């Protein structure tokens, strides 16, 4: 435990150093990576550990984002409280969703969460106080003056996002390594056997949904901070798909993998952009090449390393033994 705390503090210090060395674009991307890492951890918990396939984590991010924005703008709360609200409200929604979905499995659960992912952001269009299509502005304010003129807004985002990410990952890691994590994995492998051993699988599933949604909501609030906006268009079905994609690419049951997955999610559009420019910069190419690369990567990784790149090496290690 102490080692873990030390590790996380060390990571935080490294991030601080990196933040000082790189230019503004990378710092901004760093904030995005932190955000995705939190979001991906929600998938790892829900799907990787408790075995429930949800296509709706994007919707939970929306819940978090909007809660934070409303708390900041309408309740006039301080920024940190807005993030707390994001966690609390999404957890509540998650509990609700979990209760409705606990009896569902496989495709039925996928279908329900799919419908949620498509339908939830739309609610923003119906109620004026949710800002409609243009959305609500989410302004966490300028960095404190004592950091000086050179300390850009995006660096401030990076600091806040990294801190939150480290904190969230630390907590999640502890939860996953506790008996809760073990119970979830038991339910995932064989829920009948788990029940026979005295596990109340329904309740555990709901708990998984709750915590997963809380994490997703937090990620949603962090996203809102980085773009200073919550709008339905930020939480589309594609986001939910991207999250599941990132989780699979990194290893759906591996928490350390979420950083790698987040990096991939941020790096791919970049790489695709550069490639498209090298290949001639045709309009079409620019629009569809990133999607092509992501899809191919996804298919390859799902076929050949469905449990993440770490698994292949672990297997080889086993063989050696």
């Amino acid at each position, binding site marked *: 435990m102490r080692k873990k705390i030390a590790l996380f503090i060390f990571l935080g210090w490294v991030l601080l150093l990196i933040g000082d060395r790189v230019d503004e674009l990378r710092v901004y991307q760093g904030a995005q990576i932190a955000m995705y890492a939190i979001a991906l951890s929600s998938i790892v918990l829900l799907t990787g*550990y408790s075995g429930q396939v949800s296509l709706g984590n994007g919707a939970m991010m929306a819940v978090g984002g909007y809660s934070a924005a409303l708390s900041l703008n309408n309740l006039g709360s301080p920024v940190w409280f807005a993030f707390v609200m994001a966690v609390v409200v999404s957890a509540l929604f998650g509990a609700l969703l979990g209760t409705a979905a606990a009896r569902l499995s*496989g*495709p039925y659960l996928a279908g*329900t969460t799919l419908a949620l992912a498509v339908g939830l952001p*739309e609610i923003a269009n*119906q109620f004026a106080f949710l800002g409609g299509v243009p959305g609500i502005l989410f302004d966490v304010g300028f960095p404190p003056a004592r950091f000086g003129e050179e300390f850009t807004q995006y660096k401030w985002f990076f600091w806040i996002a990294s801190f939150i990410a480290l904190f969230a990952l630390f907590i999640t890691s502890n939860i996953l390594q506790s008996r809760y994590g073990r119970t979830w994995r038991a339910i995932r492998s064989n829920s009948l056997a788990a029940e026979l051993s005295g596990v109340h699988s329904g309740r555990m599933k709901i708990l998984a949904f709750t915590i997963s949604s809380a994490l997703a909501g937090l990620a949603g609030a962090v996203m809102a901070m980085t773009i200073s906006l919550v709008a339905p268009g930020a939480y589309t079905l594609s986001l939910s798909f991207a999250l599941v*994609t990132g989780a699979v690419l990194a290893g759906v049951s591996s928490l350390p993998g979420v950083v790698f997955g987040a990096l991939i999610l941020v790096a791919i559009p970049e790489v695709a952009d550069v490639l498209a420019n090298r290949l001639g910069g045709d309009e079409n*190419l620019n629009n569809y*090449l990133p999607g092509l690369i992501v899809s191919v990567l996804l298919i390859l990784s799902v076929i050949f390393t469905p449990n993440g790149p770490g698994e292949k090496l672990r297997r080889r290690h086993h063989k050696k033994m």
Partner: protein
Amino acid sequence: MQKLLETFLIGLSTGSIYALMSLALVLVWRSTRVVNFAQAGQAMLSTYIGFEIASRTEIFWLGLACAIAAGALLGAGVDYFFMRVLFKHAVSGPAAVVAPVIATLGLLGLIRSIVGLIWGGEFKSIKAPASTDGFTIGERTIPFSPLNLLIIVTVFLILIILAVIFQRTNLGLSLRASAYAPEIAQLAGIRTARTRTIGWAIAGGVGGVAGMLVTSSNFLSPYSLDLLLVFGFIAAVIGGLESMVGSVLGALILGIGLTIILNYIGTSLVFIGGFVVLIVVLLVKPDGIMARGRARRA
């Protein structure tokens, strides 16, 4: 009263297109136990091919026929080249639960990107095979047009053809046997793998029809069939993925329900309405409305 009738008719028309998509999804699910998200991509590609033929020859039905053929070929191709590889490699560990979903999602993205690279993102339109002007009854013109009627009739015909195939032919018997009890079917001499591919081909062809029909009153773009996929999937789940009749019923219920929401409440709540319909059905019957008890789980 008038409005209710109009709503019902339009709902029937939209629902019947969803029925095609949900049928295709159920067909694949029953034979392979995979939800094929790429169905939308296959349908989209088939529709683009149909569009090319239809716009060059100005004959919608020729385009439709080509879309069906393309869809069937594509479906068979996806099963043969893609699914078999997938199942050979990715069936263990924590990702087994999510791998097929992701794989078909990846395939959807792949097809979409290829279509975008070839045809571009510009909206295209297919000239409808029937007029879109509403029928005039007495003085009023109702929003139900000959095109809507044509859609209902076409889907109905396809359902009848499929029913005949499945209930009356040897092929249909093999298909049902392979899906329900593959080992026993093999023992009885049925080549289950090939039969499964045929099932995918039929599903692909049906998806092609859905795409052409829905595009005749809307625009074609690499994203235009996504909605169809979502609603088709919801409809299939409502009907209980096990039953083809159920998926059609589910689709009609969904179509009518959504049109009621659209006409009486407001456009912004259509999607969340879909979610509500789904949740309500699943709370009462977690395996869909046609499920016989808890016989099969994923």
